[in-house]
Structure formats: C-alpha cells, structure tokens
C-alpha cells in the first residue's frame, strides 16, 4: 500500500512534488497509507469506509489471490465430483474416516464450494473497487497542469542558474518557448501569482499508460464475465457418416452460460465423413496413438456452401467464432436385428465406450424394444484385435485388426416401455432374462439366431465414432486484446518518466535578471534525468544568450549544482 514517492527532504520539494504523490495513484499503491483506522471519520460511516478501503487495498487483493491459488490446490489433488464422480466414491471407500470430513468442507467439489465462491467474489470486488476509483484519479491526473513554481528552486534535487541580460518577464518567456518547443506542458505566472516563473512538465504519457493499464484490467474482468454469461461448452458423439446441427437438442451434454438461449448457438451443421487413428506398431510405445484425425464437411449456416476440414488434436475447426475440438474416439459396431418373420426392427451403428484406453476394449448395449415376440437387450464387449488369453477374449491392439463382439442377450415381455429418460449406453436388466447361459461371439458379417423364435442379430460391420467438444467463449478475444493493452500500458508507465522543470527569473541589481532553473523527476529509477536536466539547463542558457539584445555578450556556462553531482 505504499506509494512510490519522491523523497521529501525539504519544504520546497514538498510543494513541487505535491501532486506527484497525493493526487496521483501509483501503480502499486492505493488510497494512501490509510492505517489510521476507522476513527478518522465519524463512527457511523467510519467502519464501512474503513472496511471498504481494506477490501480494495492491493494487499488484500494479493492475499485473496494467494488464497484462490491455495484453494484450488485440493481441486487438483483430491478427486472432484464434477470431473470424476467414480473416483470420489472410491476415495470414500478407501478413506472412510477422512472422506466425510473432507466432504463437509466441500473439498470434493472445490470450485462450487461456498468458501471458494467467497474468495473469488471478494477478489473480484477488491479488484474492481481498487481499479475503478484509481482510473478516475488517473484520468484527473493526466489532465492537471503543472503546479506553481516553488519559491526556492535551488533546493530542488536538480538546479542551475544563469544571469540574463533580459528583463525577468522576457527571460522567462524565452525559457517558456524553448520548453514549449520540447513538448513540455507549461504553466505561466497568472495575475494573482507573484514573481516571474514558468512551470513545465513532461511525461504525461506515463499517466496515459497507467490509465490504459487500469482500464484494460477492468476490460479483462468484463471479458471473463462476458464469457461466463454468454459462452457455452457442449459435447457431441458422432459416428462416421452421421451429421448433426448445432442446436441444444442435438448435443449430448451442454454447459451454457446464464444468458445463453437456444438461438445463440452458431447455426452450423457438421458431417463426420471419416475418422482415422493410427498407432505405433512397434517399439516401446506400441499401441499408443500416433495420429488422430476427423475429416468433416460443414456448412456455416443452413444453405451455405459446404467446406471440408480435418480436425486433429489441438487443431480445432473454427466456425462462426465457435470452436469444435476432437476430444475422443471409439468404435461403433453396426448391428441389425430381424424378427423371425424377416422384419428389420433394429439397424444402427451403436457407439461402444472404451473401457480400456490402451487397447480400446469397449463396452456397449443394444436395445431392441421392437423385438418380437420379446423385447430384446444385448450387453456387448467389442474387441478390436481379439486374442484368446487362457480361454477369455482380450484385445491386443487398439486398431480394428481382428474385430470381434461378444454379446449376452436378454429378453422380457414389456420391460422397456418406461417413459422415464434413460441412458442409451446402459441396459437395465431388472425384469429381463438371459436368453443363453454364455456370451456369444460374432465376427463381422456373422449372425446369431436367437432362441425362442426371437429372430437373429447380425454384426454387420464396424464404424468409428469421434467425440467433439463445441465451445463458444465470446470473452476470449476481448480478454486477449485487453491483456495486450494492459501489458502495453504497464510498459509505457514503467518506461516513461514524469519530470518537472521550473524556471524563475528575479530582477538583477545591474539590469537584466538572474534566472534559476529547478528540476524534479518522479521515480527516476533509470537515472537519466540528471543528464537530461543538465543539457536542458545549458540549452536554456544558450537560448537566453542568443535572445539577448547585446551582441558580443559572452556565452556563460550555467552554474549547475545538481544534487546528484555534488
């Protein structure tokens, strides 16, 4: 909470530096060293104000930021409900004493826990409360004229003096026009002011940079809120040859922002033409994927010209500022079920979900509610490269080199007529009977005649499926732009120095005048102001000499008495 201030050693400096320190908000400080506590104002309005100042202080913001990082810790160490509910249950089973306590603290769902929300809401309030008033102050400070020239310029950190042949007013005028030419902002003595002087200030760009930084910081916060309110994330599983239109009903899972409505979804449609995955066939990484790609055709809006794209990992399709990522893949064996009368009651590529990501051994179900005379259900295992290990089927490789499905058939009279929504990936076998005691193995093209006159099931062939993530974050680009602007503003405010030069002229005893020049730089970290001031003082003296009426006047070196040089 400490402002960067120029040293206040002497009275004159206090005047000259006044608005450097107080009116202007530094990058690091906030509303001054407010350690006085609430008693400063009346007790009624004192406490809220004091609390507000504490909240919006940079120290509090940093503590909150640290707490946020600390709070996220358990989220990455402990299993989380949102990401992996199964792992949470497992944790409960293996740590029966500890888990309930962790659960009470919300550590299994950190990002939805009230204490976590409290941290980031306070951080948000703290940042906004700190940045907004500062922005106003900076805007004001960027517009203020330089202060009046102090009375004793020689007491300033940098000072010089030279005699002038000109009367005081004219001498100051010459100095003013030179400083004005150097793009200093000037302030001349007005009617009410005593003496002849000019104040000049340069480096307002520092304030502009500072202002830009703060505004851009607000912009980043707004962008994040924008993304949260209007963005959405969704998943869609698509089998080769299938097409889907980007609309809420078509998506498997949607996480919309609060203000997203159905018509906010980008009106594209996408067909998965083919999916290909290749795997290393030898060496240590045998069986690990070497490449995935989904070849898609898409139309940006209904009736638009179709375009093609190859979506790969980390190479999403970008359509209408929505991004489509490839996040998963698997096999969808095609099954056909016909009744004893030859009526087709099921024909579909049925997505199976990988149970083992290394070998793509996958589980799936086939539900045939129109089976006749019984409703039929099948629990299946798909084995891409089947090998027999001690009499049981195992997958040796993720590619479909020797594909096999193993099915267990169930039947019932009318158990599938519930109108309660159910996962298409799960078969509820309550009320169903196994048709055969052992699983039946099918190779592509093979059929299995089901007992009980239930017709037959054919394993027609194999397709692949790709799982796509569709994301829209309207805050992404604004956040990036604001981030760059904030960085630019920060650099500007670090690189540009704000510095003041005062020139005062007093009438000299023998005609003409004595001119004193004083200089003051704020945060002269790089130390360049001393040289700048010395050359400026020399130029002022030279300009004064050349403006003087008497020819032959010898040029005088300014009597430089820079504090640093002494």
């Amino acid at each position: 909470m400490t402002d960067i201030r120029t040293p206040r050693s002497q009275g004159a400096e206090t005047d000259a530096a006044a608005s450097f320190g107080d009116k202007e908000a530094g990058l690091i400080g906030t509303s001054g060293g407010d350690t006085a506590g609430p008693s400063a104002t009346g007790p009624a309005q004192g406490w809220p104000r004091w609390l507000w100042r504490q909240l919006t202080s940079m120290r509090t913001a940093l503590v909150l930021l640290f707490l946020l990082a600390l709070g996220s810790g358990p989220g990455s160490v402990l299993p989380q409900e949102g990401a992996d509910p199964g792992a949470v249950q497992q944790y409960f089973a293996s740590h029966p004493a500890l888990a309930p306590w962790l659960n009470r603290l919300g550590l299994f769902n950190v990002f939805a826990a009230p204490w976590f929300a409290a941290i980031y809401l306070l951080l948000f309030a703290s940042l906004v409360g700190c940045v907004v008033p500062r922005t106003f102050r900076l805007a004001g400070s960027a517009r203020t004229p330089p202060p009046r020239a102090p009375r004793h310029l020689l007491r300033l950190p940098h000072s010089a003096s030279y005699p002038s042949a000109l009367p005081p007013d004219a001498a100051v005028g010459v100095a003013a026009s030179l400083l004005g030419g150097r793009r200093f902002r000037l302030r001349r003595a007005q009617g009410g002011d005593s003496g002849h002087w000019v104040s000049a200030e340069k480096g307002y760009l520092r304030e502009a940079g500072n202002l830009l930084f703060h505004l851009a910081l607000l912009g980043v916060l707004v962008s994040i809120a924008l993304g949260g309110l209007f963005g959405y994330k969704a998943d869609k599983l698509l089998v080769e040859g299938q097409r889907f239109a980007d609309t809420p009903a078509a998506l498997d899972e949607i996480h919309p922002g609060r203000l997203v409505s159905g018509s906010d979804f980008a009106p594209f449609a996408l067909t998965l033409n083919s999916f290909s995955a290749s795997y290393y066939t030898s060496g240590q990484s045998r069986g690990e994927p070497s490449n995935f790609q989904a070849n898609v055709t898409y139309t940006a809006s209904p009736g638009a010209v179709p375009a093609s794209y190859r979506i790969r990992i980390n190479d999403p399709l970008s359509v209408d500022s929505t991004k489509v990522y490839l996040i998963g893949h698997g096999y969808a064996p095609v099954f056909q079920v016909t009744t004893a009368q030859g009526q087709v009651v099921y024909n579909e590529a049925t997505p199976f979900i990988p149970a083992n990501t290394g070998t793509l051994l996958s589980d799936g179900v086939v539900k045939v509610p129109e089976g006749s005379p019984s409703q039929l259900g099948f629990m299946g295992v798909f084995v891409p490269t089947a090998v027999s290990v001690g009499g049981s089927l195992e997958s040796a490789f993720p590619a479909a080199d020797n594909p096999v499905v193993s099915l267990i058939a169930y039947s019932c009279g009318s158990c599938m007529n519930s109108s309660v929504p159910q996962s298409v990936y799960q078969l509820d076998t309550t009320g169903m009977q196994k048709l055969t005691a052992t699983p039946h193995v099918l190779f592509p093209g093979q059929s299995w005649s089901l007992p009980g006159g239930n017709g037959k099931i054919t394993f027609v062939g194999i397709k692949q499926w790709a799982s796509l993530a569709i994301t829209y974050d309207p805050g992404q680009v604004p956040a990036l732009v604001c981030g760059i602007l904030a960085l630019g503003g920060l650099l500007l405010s670090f690189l540009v120095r704000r510095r003041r030069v005062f020139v005062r002229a007093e009438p000299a005893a023998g005609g003409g005048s004595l001119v004193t020049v004083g200089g003051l730089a704020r945060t002269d970290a790089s130390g360049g102001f001393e040289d700048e001031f010395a050359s400026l003082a020399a130029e002022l003296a030279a300009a004064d000499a050349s403006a003087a009426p008497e020819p032959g006047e010898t040029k005088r070196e300014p009597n430089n008495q820079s504090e640093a040089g002494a």
Partner: protein
Amino acid sequence: MFRAKRRTVVTLTAVPVALLAGALVVTLTQGNLKASGVTYVNGDTNEIVYAQGHRALAPDFTGTSLTGTPISLASYHGKVVVLNFWGSWCNPCRGEAPTLAVLAEQYGPKGVSFLGDDVGDTPANALAFTRSVGITYPSVNDASYSVVQQFGRVAPLNDTPTTVVIDRTGHIAGLVIGAISYQAMTTILRDAVTT
C-alpha cells in the same frame, strides 16, 4: 472538497462493482435455456401458448420421410399442423406416442395434420416403432436435427420430445416441452383450430 470528490468516486465505483459482482453471481449457477416472447405459460404442465400477433413464423423446412418421400411444411399451408419432435431411442417419446396416435385420429377430420420429426435415429428403428405403436402419419428423417435447428431460432426447442402446434397461417401457436398430455394438447389445439 477532496472528501466530496472521494464520495462520488466511491459511488461511481459501487455501480460497476454491483453490476459485475451480480453478473458473476448469476454466472455461478449454470443457465437454463430460456424461452422468450412467451405470452402464457402453464406452470403445471410444460406448455406454452402464444397469443395471436405474438406468434413466430414457423421455418419452412423441406426433407424426406422415413420411407423416402419428400416432405415440405409449405405443402401443409392453410392447415393446423401438430409437429412432434421425437426419436425411437427416447423413452418419453415412446411414452407419449400412443396419445399422439389417438389425437391424430380425433383431430384428423377437423383439419389438423400430424407430422413427426424423427431426430438422432435410424429409419429402421423409427419405422419399427411407429408400426408397433400404430402411428400412421409421416415423419421427417431428421437424424441430424436440421429441422430442430431451424425451429430453435424461433422457439425454445431445447429437448426431445417437443411438440409444436402451427396455425393455419403457418405461425407457431404453442408448444409442449417434454412428453405431451392429452389435456395440454387439446387446450392448444382448441385454440389453434378456432382461430
């Protein structure tokens, strides 16, 4: 004077702070996909009825039926249309289908056409279902949800099943989100048939 200034600064701060914090609080709870321009919502069931003058024009889609014949909404102009979005994989759709079959028989003679839009499905599975449940009206083969996408621009069509009633002028008179009930459908249909 400095104090007064500070007070205005604090006030000026409070507004955006409140706005942004509010926005964040709202973000905390995940959003629903909400309907807009609704003139009447029955809270008990999930039906929405739009008053005359507040009805959006139904998108004029074309497609092919499950058996391969062309279908276009334009060919139904001048009739009241009940458009049911369904899939044979969807249990609530299977549950409401017998009621739809009954309604189609009752309202057919009164000039109401029934049309299905079969989403996320295969024709074989869909036809096996319509055969067994006794639905005789055609369904658009809309495995890709294209028709849903077009309707989603003008009506809250966020889930399957949804049933939309289109009036004689081709405007959306109302809809039922989720499985229909006989009661809800007759309410909307009575209104649509008489106007």
